[in-house]
């Protein structure tokens, strides 16, 4: 068993995570949350700081592929684990298909909830390529949006799902 000491003058501890595909070693005080370390120590401010009590969903990241609230995970608990944030969604050719669909349909207005929605939606589509509207409503129920009324968000995820399905079909036709 190892021990990581804290206290008002606590020494920082070191942890190594994989963040958006890259290995990152970072030092922080033992009681800091994943959200705090991502934003304050790694400068990854795409993950938003909302209620900080697990009620709004805007701080969602993928931890080993599963959506979790980074405000309710200790940085220490992420040793050796894979973390994906909104910064990891875009590729060399620009925004991801989900991000493009959000922009096209106005699924982001003030934008504060958008990173959390995008990451949950990535997780949903990875498991269920063509979710029903009812499934989407349930799967996105842990994320609050006070601007859009949610409909455009559901439509954007459905558009991305449809394009992925068409893309897969086209690849199939070309034998790829």
């Amino acid at each position, binding site marked *: 068993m190892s021990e990581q000491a804290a206290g008002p003058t606590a020494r920082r501890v070191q942890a190594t995570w994989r963040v958006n595909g890259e290995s990152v070693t970072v030092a922080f005080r033992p009681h800091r*949350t994943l959200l705090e370390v991502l934003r304050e120590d790694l400068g990854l401010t795409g993950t938003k700081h909302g209620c900080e009590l697990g009620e709004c969903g805007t701080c969602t990241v993928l931890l080993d592929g599963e959506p*979790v609230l980074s405000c309710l*995970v200790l940085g220490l608990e992420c040793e050796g684990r894979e973390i994906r944030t909104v910064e990891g969604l875009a590729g060399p050719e620009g925004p991801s298909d989900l991000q493009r669909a959000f922009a096209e349909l106005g699924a982001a207005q003030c934008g504060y909830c958008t990173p959390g929605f995008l990451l949950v939606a990535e997780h949903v589509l990875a498991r269920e390529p063509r979710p029903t509207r009812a499934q989407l409503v349930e799967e996105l129920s842990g994320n609050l949006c006070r601007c859009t009324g949610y409909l455009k968000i559901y439509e954007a995820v459905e558009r991305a799902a449809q394009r992925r399905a068409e893309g897969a079909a086209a690849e199939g036709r070309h034998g790829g």
Partner: protein
Amino acid sequence: MKAFRFLRPRTLAEASEALRREPGAVPKAGGVDLLDRWKERVEEPEVVVGLCDVTDGAALRLEEDGALVLGALATLADLAGSDLVRRFLPALARAADQAASPQIRHRATLGGNLAQATRCGYWRLRSFPCLLRGASRCPVREPGGVQETAGIFANDPCASAHPSSVAPVLGALGAEILVGGGPEGGRGLAFEALWRAPEPGRSDVLALEPGELIRAVRIPPSAHPVRVGHAEVRQRAAFDWPLVTAAVGLTLDADRIREARVWLGSVAPTPHRARAAEAALTGRRLAEVRATFDGRAAAEGATPLPGTAYKAGLVAVAARRALADALERS
């Protein structure tokens, strides 16, 4: 949040040893509620025993004798998604799948769900007095107290309510709790023996010995067919706390109810067994209870406060729906 020392055991045995060695240390599994409480400074542990590296606590398995053993470190998402749980304990899979939000279900564990604290707004805000935190009286019970989500059974002197919606289903399944790591080693507890009644000045809800942890929940095999149903009443369909949860477990002899278990959540400081409702169901034929059971027996013994009078009616509704669920689905 106040800083703490963080210990990281590799096994449940090491975790128990750490808890025994460090009086006042708090075990943390998913910790989704603990972190809220620490941030709000309702509780400020000096030492946290993190269970994130423990590898022997999350398995869901079917024993040779037909018992199902559910590791306490399994998450609610694990339960909801497990083929084994969906096949043999569908009501449990549904209850786990309806709790909280998808993100929280990926962190919140079975053991933590059973061990969770009340949602009472007075207990959760340090600036309010609270009997469990050392005040002389429970402010919920005072005139003008906010009572809507308070308990209606065993609510004197503390009107808190245990919010688990998984616990009533486990009670209806006849579950036992396997705890371990205390001075006596491992032991099995009857389901209701996991919790203790509120005492002034004590916020912990579990009747565990120092160093003990919830290791697993065991659902014993049944020689007779069992049907289990579950119903929850809440204000929002998703991401909300239940106002009332009810679960009904029926052990059958052909079309007659040999044994009934009726458990309620969010109505008392601990999960509440509705014995009068069990008596109203036991020995009866299914067709008869389908036609006549109105659920009111489940509210027998309730002592609602003025603001919770409505909950006795909700208990009857939830018990009726849980029975209907048991008769229709399983």
